[in-house]
């Protein structure tokens, strides 16, 4: 049994400590927005936030995450006020500025890697609100996209940065 905080909510899961977080999210919590790509932290499709940092959930044993705050793509758009009010986030409601930028730039093709790309970008912009092209390269070169949406991702990151900056 492991106690986790997932998208602002406390959950208790029955899982062996070495089970990667990815499979706890997908198979035990039904949060399938986080994707399985390689299983060895090479592609970034499984990227989530742990205490605000972008991490690869496919290689992260759930036993090490007790009490840590985990955010997945499903929880990205939850405004803090809504969390406090205990209101449940539903797909189809508000979006994070990064997700909005992804829509505006028509980024996704197959879309499978995009949850990971978006999670990495949100963490990048939290740490660096005005990233240069080089900053974007270093943050996002670990996220693979086989459809080749990189040029649009770059544009969307810049767009989101502009939207978020006060």
């Amino acid at each position: 049994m492991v106690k986790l905080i997932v998208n602002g909510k406390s959950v208790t899961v029955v899982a062996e400590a070495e089970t990667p977080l990815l499979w706890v999210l997908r198979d035990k919590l039904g949060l399938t927005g986080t994707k399985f790509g390689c299983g060895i932290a090479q592609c970034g499709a499984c990227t989530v936030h742990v205490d605000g940092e972008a991490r690869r959930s496919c290689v992260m044993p759930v036993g090490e995450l007790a009490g840590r705050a985990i955010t997945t793509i499903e929880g990205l758009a939850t405004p803090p006020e809504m969390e406090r009010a205990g209101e449940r986030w539903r797909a189809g409601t508000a979006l994070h500025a990064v997700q909005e930028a992804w829509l505006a730039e028509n980024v996704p093709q197959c879309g499978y890697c995009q949850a990971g790309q978006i999670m990495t970008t949100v963490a990048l912009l939290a740490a660096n609100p005005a990233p240069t092209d080089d900053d974007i390269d270093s943050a996002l070169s670990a996220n693979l996209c086989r459809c080749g949406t990189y040029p649009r991702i770059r544009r969307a990151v810049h767009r989101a940065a502009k939207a978020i900056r006060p």
Partner: protein
Amino acid sequence: MNRRTFLLGTASGALAIGCAFGRTGGRVWRHHQRTGELQPNAWIRILADGRVIFTLDRVEMGQGTMTSHAAMVCEELEVDPTTITILPAEASRAYDNPDRQIRVQITGGSTSTKASWQPLREAGAVAREMLRRAAAETWAVPLGECVAIAGTIQHAKTSRMLRYGELVKAAARQDTPRVRLKDPAQWTLIGKSLGRLDIRPKVDGSGIYGVDVQLPGLLTAVIVRPPVRGGTVAKLDASAARARRGVVDVVQIPEGVAVIAEGYWEARTGAELLQVTWDEGHGGTLDTDALFAAFEKLASARGQRTAHDAGDAYEALGKGTRVEATYRAPYLAHATMEPQNATCWIRRGRCEVWAPTQTPGIARFRVAEAIGFDLDDVAIHTTLIGGGFGRRGLVDYAVEAARLAQRVKRPIKVMWSREDDQEHDWYRPMAVSKFVGSVEFGTGNESRPLQPGPGRITGWLHRLVAQSIVTHEAGDFLGARVPNATPRALRRLVSAGPPRMTARGTLLDPTSIEGAADLPYAIPNLRVEYTPAETGIPVGFWRSVGHSFNAFFTECFFDELAHAAGKDPYELRRELLASHPRHRAVLELAATRAGWDTPLAAGVGRGIAVHASFHSFCAQVAEVSVTGNRVRVHRVVVAIDCGRVVNPGLVAAQVESAVIYGLSAALKQQITHRKGRVQETNFHTYRSLRMHETPVIETHLVTSTEDPTGVGEPGVPPIAPALCNAIFAATGKRIRTLPIEAALASPGAAS
């Protein structure tokens, strides 16, 4: 619609009713009486509440069919595509790809827009006309005064308006009309960059891909597969696996040993506990170096078949300056981001499959065969698809899920690991080409290399050795293509014939020679020979298929001959494409936009290539520099002529996608076998282009009034040769073996 026979599919896809339109719309009326909907054809349903439901029969795997196809329907139907509901088509013959060479429910061959262009616009127009007639009848006004605008029919003179939903009943009584399609000048959607309709669920995590399918009591299976081709289980000890918590069963199927558990992690770690001794058969001897040596030996002799013969190449090669070269292209994996998977549930004599597949048609046929069901008792639900690239034209994952569902009597999902995906793909075939060319010089040209001059190519001999894809894939395709009522034995007979013939070479596999046998250049003596070479390694369609290697072979060797003739590679292409205006137009457009004649920074080289595939024409100019073994691609300028452009934004996205997919392969990718084992087992060894390596890609579309042609694939073939020709321009090194990074790292591979 000229009294054509159309098929009326139902929402479930379980029934496909032949429906002869023309004299009477009786079936549309009967359908309305049952359901309250207007369903004039297999694609469009309009509900009494006004909702428009469009059934998308070419799967959306990122290439944009959901958006482009909705635009084609909505253009004629006069509704806002952002307001309609779009559902993926179930397996049904009503949704066979109308392309004459296909006629199976499959999305591939860059046919989606080309094949749907006429039927989908007609489908929208038929619905619109039935609604207009219904309004004219209701109001008792002349039909000509009833105008369809944004989901309504309007009568300006009396300021009356009815919504489509309100007209459904009266429209369903109408005979199916002959329709005239809108004049292009009236288009409001076609030709515009309508935003993608499929991406909201792809950015908020709610989209359901194959791996995300959930069902009550769902089990997950991981299959341990033989380490080499044709390996079989000699001894199995599953006791430790069975003892693992969460493991439910261990089941042997022809594909391997399945460990079935409550979830993926339990199944995967359970699979690691299996003790399997494999009988490797001959599969353990496969070795890439030996295969290339064997292919090269075959290419040294006259080809088994002549794919093209003009003039007398052998005689011409005896004169002038002779140039010889051998080119090699490796096996390639598709490496879709979503590993292969499928979910199946068999209950009460019905089999339901949920799968990210490019072909519900073949999936239904193969699943039915595998579990001994009738086609009508198998339903295929297409999920979102995490990348296709040709891989999901195969349905092995669906067959596995069905076999296991039949055994465990519960819903079950088969999940491939990345390693499974890499090691058990149906690869882009390896191929070898030996070329001999001859060039002749005019006067005074040898002293002025690279200047336009009278040097010319007099002879071209291309000996291509490649593994036949048809041998591996045609069985599935033909089996699904014959009418559903075909007896099983006859179906098997039909599907087995052509593969045997292509393997023997008695039938020329068109996918092996495409892009080589139809070389567009005016070379007087041109001969292309082909020899099929079967290795036993499964091969399949990979984005742009035979063009993917033949463009590399021919456009690189053409560059060699241009340099040998002392001609500018762009100018010589232009000259020899005089009778191919669409090739020449994209070539000129790409060269102009790239600034072919403008100077480059020191160390940067520019290369060009042009290639036609899937009825489209594409030219690319690449700018690169090379430091040691590292290649930096700075800029790629693309010109593409794909006929009328339905959505310029989607075409540009597909071109960027194709360039990046092709660059990954050209620079980094190969599947090699040692002792029968695939060496590139995950993304660390099968590398793809990443953000920081991606060049600036500029896409220029040719304005055309020709009907639309392929977009998803034609951007792939030119990039490898454009890149290799640019590397030659930058360094003087000729890359003749892909991938480039490996070639540069191994001394002697490049010269």
